[in-house]
């Protein structure tokens, strides 16, 4: 099983957070305004063990995501500037507003990767302080190898500004993916290319949570059985 770049990311991300905070302070000082920086990053490494063992092969990492609501749900189905956005994977946010969806891309190692975000006009982005910002540049997100495992799954949790837990991934198994978290059981039918997204309000307790695709079940915190 290949190791995932998430193994290296904590220090690099921590450095990015520190630089970003410093940049926000500098800009605020220049503009003579209070810093408007927020804790922009997920803290996936709290759940690193969970995420890493969630898939049987091809580990995953997490990407930066923001929750928000109040924007209209778009009608567009594609975006030339963001190839790979799978609009049929879109899942509603519990509070309404822009749905969540994934974009599929292939990393330099040939693995399938997913970027999660809020869908608008067929493109993914984030909602920051009530304002939608389309993702720019190269996509980033968790990666796995569907050649090695039938399921790629990732969990991202964010405590602010609005607490959300998002389970998403890719399945090459026919039929729905069943997500069991506590007493909640959700059956999510992947889109045409196998992408699925399930959004939960709050920071759900993932203890004992499982994801089932076909006859295989992957336990959060444990391996597939």
């Amino acid at each position, binding site marked *: 099983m*290949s*190791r995932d*770049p998430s*193994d*290296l*990311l*904590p*220090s*690099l991300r*921590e*450095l*990015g957070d*520190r*630089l*970003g905070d*410093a*940049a*926000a302070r*500098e*800009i605020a000082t*220049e*503009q003579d305004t209070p810093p*408007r*920086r927020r804790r*922009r990053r997920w803290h996936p490494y709290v759940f690193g063990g969970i995420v890493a063992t969630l898939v049987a092969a091809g580990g995953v990492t997490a990407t*930066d995501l923001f929750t928000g609501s109040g924007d209209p749900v778009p009608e567009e189905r594609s975006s030339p500037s963001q190839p790979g956005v799978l609009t049929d994977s879109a899942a509603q946010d519990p509070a309404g507003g822009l749905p969540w969806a994934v974009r599929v891309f292939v990393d330099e*190692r*040939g*693995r399938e990767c997913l970027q999660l975000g809020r869908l608008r006009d067929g493109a993914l982005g984030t909602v*920051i302080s009530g304002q939608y*910002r389309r*993702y*720019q*540049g*190269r996509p*980033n997100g968790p990666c796995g*190898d569907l050649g090695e495992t039938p399921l790629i799954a990732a969990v991202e949790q964010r405590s602010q500004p609005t607490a959300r837990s998002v389970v998403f991934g890719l399945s090459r198994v026919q039929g729905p993916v069943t997500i069991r978290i506590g007493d909640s059981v959700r059956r999510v039918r992947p889109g045409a290319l196998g992408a699925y997204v399930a959004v939960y309000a709050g920071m759900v307790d993932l203890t004992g949570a499982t994801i089932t695709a076909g006859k295989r079940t992957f336990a959060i915190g444990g391996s597939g059985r």
Partner: protein
Amino acid sequence: MHQMALRWRQTRPEPPLLRRAADDPAAFDELYDELAQRVLLFFTRRVFDGQLALDLTGETFATAFQRRRSFRGTTAEEQEGWVFAIARSQLSHYWRRGRVERAALQRLGVEVPAMGDAELERVEELAGTAQLRTRVAHELSRLPADQREAVQAHVVDERPYSELADEWGVSEQTIRARVSRGLRRLGATLDEPVTERVH
């Protein structure tokens, strides 16, 4: 007859993140997310030390932030080239002085986090340094003897030019030229991509 009106919608590309980062911290975040790992691996492949590479990465982005208003490019490619030019400059400074410049990091009050053992191992794995070491050793063995000995003595064993000049009975300039030619050839090796097949 039914007529259909077509309207062109003119769009303009968004300015590069660096331009937007002049007064938007989120744009700087995005720039970091886009390039940080590649910059880290760029350094790791050249200094063979993940923590050192992270230090250099931090100084590179701190410098990029501080100089962001001097960026005049209009495309993502120019932006990337600009950041990597800073990275190469940091590397050059490191080679010359033997230490990482931290002036920009200090001005921003940023301390570079320490990498754990697992991270260091992972960074080296991603950078392909094990393969690279083998390739460099191989290329070193293929250098002409005078260049190989000069690189070995000055770069690997860190012996000063003056000492080598005395010992070998040639001018310092001659040894500098041998080291320079040898490193240039090895440098070409370092710039070749390392491909990794994932099973």
